[in-house]
């Protein structure tokens, strides 16, 4: 990376690799894994404090928890699936939203400064869980033939192009969908982290050169990017859950 002559340590893929912190029987435990587990601890602890001994007249913490819970339940799940179908999937969606959000927020937390979801494994696991919820659900709801019709959008009224439509739908729904679902989150966090590292490192680097005013610009950009990232983190968690709901809703719906 330092072969461009000026010695600027540009961020790249290596920014997403971590030395193992310790090793247990060939299992390398690294910083990202630690952050993922802390995310779990944070989400569970917060909501345990908020809902563990929930009261009729809520305290401050419970009120915040309820607002978050209500946002996902009413704002995402009921909106896409309706109350009757959606109720069953509320726990999954609430878990997904807050877990992803916290994993994203690590990006701007001092010392951590790394979004867990910018490592493809984590979005991939979550997208996989959603995939293995909605695919079996499709067949359970519509039977074997009906399930395939639902996934491929097979419809006699389309005439001869129905086979083409079925092929495209099959490809896009069954094969590409889990991939795009995971990569959308991953790529947003990946790019955001690159930008943040880029401006942070540049601020420091330029401060030690004769381009000190440029360091100021870079620093301002860092702050701006942190604000922007905070927004993107929440939006991506929202989008991930919204898509999960819409996939499940599609599986439950009569084929269109």
């Amino acid at each position, binding site marked *: 990376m330092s072969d461009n002559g000026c010695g600027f340590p540009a961020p790249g893929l290596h920014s997403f690799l971590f030395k193992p912190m310790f090793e247990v029987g060939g299992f390398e435990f690294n910083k990202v894994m630690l952050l993922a587990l802390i995310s779990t601890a944070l989400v569970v602890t917060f909501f345990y404090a908020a809902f563990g001994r929930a009261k009729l007249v809520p305290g401050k913490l419970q009120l915040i928890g309820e607002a978050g819970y209500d946002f996902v339940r009413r704002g995402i799940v009921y909106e896409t699936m309706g109350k009757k179908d959606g109720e069953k999937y509320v726990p999954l969606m609430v878990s*997904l939203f807050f877990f992803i959000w916290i994993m994203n927020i690590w990006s701007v937390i001092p010392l951590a400064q790394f979004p867990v979801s910018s490592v493809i494994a984590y979005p991939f696991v979550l997208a996989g869980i959603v995939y293995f919820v909605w695919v079996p659900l499709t067949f359970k709801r519509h039977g074997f033939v009906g399930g395939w019709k639902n996934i491929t959008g097979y419809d006699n009224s389309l005439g001869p192009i129905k086979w083409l439509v079925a092929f495209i739908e099959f490809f896009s729904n069954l094969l590409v969908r889990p991939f795009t679902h995971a990569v959308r989150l991953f790529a947003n966090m990946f790019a955001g982290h690159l930008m943040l590292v880029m401006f942070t*490192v540049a601020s420091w680097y330029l401060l030690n050169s004769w381009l000190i005013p440029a360091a100021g610009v870079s620093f301002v950009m860092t702050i701006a990017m942190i604000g922007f990232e905070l927004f993107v983190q929440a939006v991506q968690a929202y989008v991930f859950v919204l898509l999960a709901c819409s996939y499940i809703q599609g599986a439950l719906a009569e084929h269109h």
Partner: protein
Amino acid sequence: MIANLVQLAAEHGEEQNPLIPPGPELLVGAIAFAIVFFFFWKKLLPNINKVLEERREAIEGGIEKAEAAQTEAQSVLEQYKAQLAEARHEAARLRQEAQEQGAQLIAEMRAEGQRQREEIVAAGHSQIEADRKAAAQSLRQDVGQLATELAGKLVGESLEEHARQSRTIDRFLDELDAKAEATR
């Protein structure tokens, strides 16, 4: 630190494709999410749902109570209105009754007054009649006496001793009276 990472990347030979998930991270991610999901699913969301339901019921109970109170207030108001109307009606009835009674009383008193007036007038009349009779009586005596005296003077002898003759005079005057009555 950055130098370390560069070295680390170099150690991996070619840089790893960021889209290929490393196995151990998949495992950790799955476990981390499973814990979150388990807590939400089994403990936290049932907990809060129960409380939200209770709160909804409490609020609905409060609304129902308020509605009941309002209905009661409405019925009481209607009752009061009915009572008020009845009272007004009663008052009107009493007033009319009083008016009627008053009119009757006045009529009665007027009749009584008329009667008393007539009585007084009648009494006056009879008194006058009696006085007239008494006056006529005394006048008759006086006239008799005067006539006797006059006759005595004219005749030159006192007829006083002949008082018995007065009966003759009275008879004469009675005849005159009778004549007068008859002609009247």
